[in-house]
């Protein structure tokens, strides 16, 4: 079971909402599919993202994938620790491996995301 306090996208990003701030990362399932992550390219602070817009790139030893914003909003902070330790995304996908913090533009956008049960069903279906 994936963490129940998060919202998920079909592209395997998660978002944790705290007030008007939204923290975004990728799921444990995504990291297993990608393999060892060697680089994460993140947006500049201050950039404004639309929901589902590409906000960065994650590179593993065998693939490169775009990262999509589960919700829209201004980038408040990016996880600087990933520059030197991209492997945090593999080891702590929901904690130390977070990627960006956004100012949530519109809480109603969360309705378009999956809850833990629906996301579990998605990955179970492969």
């Amino acid at each position, binding site marked *: 079971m994936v963490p129940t306090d998060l919202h998920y996208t079909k592209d395997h990003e998660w978002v944790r909402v705290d007030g008007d701030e939204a923290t975004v990362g990728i799921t444990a399932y995504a990291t297993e599919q990608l393999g060892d992550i060697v680089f994460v390219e993140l947006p500049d602070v201050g950039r404004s993202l639309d929901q589902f817009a590409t906000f960065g790139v994650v*590179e593993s030893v*065998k*693939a490169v994938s775009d990262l999509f914003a589960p919700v829209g909003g201004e980038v408040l902070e990016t996880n600087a620790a990933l520059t030197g330790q991209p492997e945090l995304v593999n080891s702590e996908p929901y904690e130390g491996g977070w990627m960006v913090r956004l100012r949530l533009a519109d809480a109603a956008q969360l309705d378009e995301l999956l809850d833990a049960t629906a996301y579990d069903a998605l990955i179970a279906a492969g």
Partner: protein
Amino acid sequence: MHYGPHTAADRARMLGALGLSSIDQLFDDIPAALRASKLDLPDPEPELELAARLSALAARNRTDLASFLGAGVYRHWSPPAVDQILLRGEWYTAYTPYQPEISQGTLQSIYEYESLLAELVDLDVVSASHYDGAAATAEAALMTCRQTHRDRVLVSRAVHPHYRETLRTYFSGGLQLEEIPLVAGGDAAGTTDLDALERMLAEPDRPVAGVIAAQPDFLGLLEPMPAIGELAHAAGALFVAVVEPIGLSVLAPPGAYGADIAAGEGQPLGIAPQYGGPYLGILATTDALVRQIPGRLVGMTTDLDGQRAFVMTMRAREQDIRRDKAASNICTNQALLALAASVYLTTVGPHGLRDVAALGAARASELEAALAAVGAPRIHPGPYLNEFAIRVPNARLIHRRLLDRGILAGLVLADAEPGDTSLADGLLVCTTEVTTRDEIDLFAEALAEILGGRPAGVEAGAGSGGSALAGSAR
């Protein structure tokens, strides 16, 4: 690596495994109208006759000329070891095998190339390799756009006109390319106009991704590279240096003056001048831009048994994996030409390379004096290395008449830069270590006769004030 043709039995077995009866069936997905049916080729000829015909065609090339032509492609002496090694069957194949389990030699040779070039340009990362200097320069320009998320690039008018043309082609899809004018007169005539550059960088709401300048520039002049780089960086733009590799042994390398990317033509490194290439595009950058550089990168690592091993690295950015978001459409390299550069650099060595550059510069100084004495002075006063522009009346006609006498008097600048009136009577002439004093005397004497002036009477070894290395050496 060994290659053998498939037998009919091999093909039948493979088709059987696929459940197909003919090779044509493999291509059923491609509409018939798009398939090549018959190539427009002449009938086959016996090998002996074909060889005779090609030899006759090749004999029409003039290889007897005293050549002073450079303009981006340079004649150099190449140690016989270079071609001897290239011709070995392990290297001389149309395909570059990259699988590490069977290709350690190929991968090591690419690694060596990247290491040698990194030392020469003084930057962290070199990719192997691009079609030619123009393609590498265009890739460098695209790198600046990707890295800065800006879409406007400034290129000095003194970058080779062919490179600017290639840049325009690459930039025709929406990116903006603008040319920085050159200084019209005075000591800096013919080099990039720093005041104009500063104004272009300061235009409101038009941020610049990259600034491109060449060292030496197309006219052979030495550019104020540190100042160009500082102006670019102050505006948040990246700085691309277009370089000539042999000159790097005596000039400051791009890494020393803060260039973010170096691009250039590697032809002078053991590759004979040949019409249309293939040549060698050099592309190098800093660690900060490593994920933007297209082309092959080979790294050194250890295998499971702890032995030194070479592998392709940073593969994930490339076209076969990243599709339309790849760093470039470049997805392979011309390994044989990178190998030529590696063998050349290794056999000539660092001291030899300096000798090559210094001798070319010394000959150029002699040529300048000889030509000035017969009425063909330099156009620009600034320092140069081994190439410079001279002014002669009726340059195109003189060029043709010198050719009749077996002298290739460089490049008619009006052909290369038709829009620049300051170059209207210009010839761009060049010397390298293979230029002889006899050739210089021949050029000067012939020019004197054609111009109706006094005979050359130039003493060997005569130098001049405007020359070469002063103030520009590392």
